[in-house]
């Protein structure tokens, strides 16, 4: 596994549990980052493969609070990122409910980056999918142009400013970066695995997306 995050993030773990103690995921999911580090350092291929196909590696929120705590300078968060990377590369992610969410995440976030040059783009942040964004966003969504104008933004405008239209030449460069650094290949990889799964289940893409967006098996949570 050639991953710099693994080199950075993995020294012999002493199972002290300081990572789990403050982990935002450990309290609300059935999750214990200490055990992940323990399994990875066991070098037990069978266990690691099981992990890569499981929901477990997708519980982390990558807040990196564990990095501050570890007395051995391990970084559970970086190890998780590395495992996720591998799970995607090997196509294992599609086997678990949480892993499958990569299909939608990759589709949405990468197209935001490639189409607009932003990870988040307000016109693609819809109240229907985000009722928690509140009554205020329900209103904002309808008046985005007026509001950006009111608040000193530059939505889809020329030149500088908040949410300006990023010139095509720059978007082309992002695309070129995606192409040579493996992001495009990864997108393709994830897309194919998702389509295969959708076909297996006899779902259209739209149905498949709706399913992975909302699926939440109670088994992830504590009782």
């Amino acid at each position: 596994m050639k991953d710099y995050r693994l080199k950075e993030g993995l020294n012999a773990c002493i199972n002290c549990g300081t990572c789990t103690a403050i982990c935002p995921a450990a309290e609300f999911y059935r999750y214990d980052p200490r055990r992940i580090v323990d399994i990875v350092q066991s070098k037990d291929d069978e266990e690691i493969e099981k992990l890569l196909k499981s929901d477990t590696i997708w519980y982390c929120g990558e807040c990196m609070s564990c990095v501050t705590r570890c007395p051995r300078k391990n970084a559970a968060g970086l190890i998780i990122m590395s495992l996720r990377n591998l799970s995607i590369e090997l196509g294992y992610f599609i086997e678990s409910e949480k892993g499958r969410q990569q299909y939608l995440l990759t589709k949405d976030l990468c197209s935001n980056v490639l189409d607009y040059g932003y990870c988040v783009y307000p016109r693609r942040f819809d109240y229907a999918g985000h009722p928690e964004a509140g009554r205020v966003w329900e209103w904002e969504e309808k008046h985005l142009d007026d509001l950006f104008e009111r608040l000193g933004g530059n939505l889809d405008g020329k030149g500088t400013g908040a949410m300006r239209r990023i010139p095509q030449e720059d978007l082309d460069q992002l695309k070129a970066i995606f192409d040579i650094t493996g992001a495009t290949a990864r997108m393709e990889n994830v897309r194919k695995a998702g389509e295969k799964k959708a076909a297996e289940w006899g779902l259209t893409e739209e149905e498949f997306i709706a399913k992975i967006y909302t699926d939440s098996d109670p088994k992830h949570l504590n009782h």
Partner: protein
Amino acid sequence: MVDFGFGLVPSSRINLDLFDREKYEKLVAMEPDAKICMACGSCTAVCTAGQFTPTSLREAIEDVFNAKDDKALEALKACQLCGKCSMVCPRGINTRHLILSITKVYSKK
């Protein structure tokens, strides 16, 4: 109340502030050896019921300390009182009596 399609998730964090000391005192009065477990896991390793069910005396003792009484009972539910654990406990705990005591003190009935 609005339904957002998701909500607060139950916490699994152990909260020692919820520890029921009175009940615990009752338990150790009945079986003082409840105090001397080292969590070595020998009992669980040889547990007959543990081969087929999630039975673990080690966990049950831990659960009692961690204010997870229901989990403690759950972990002993399938115990057949075969007594293999008492043969291996390095601290010589009378495990069968301890199991019976935990069940007695923490049962809701």
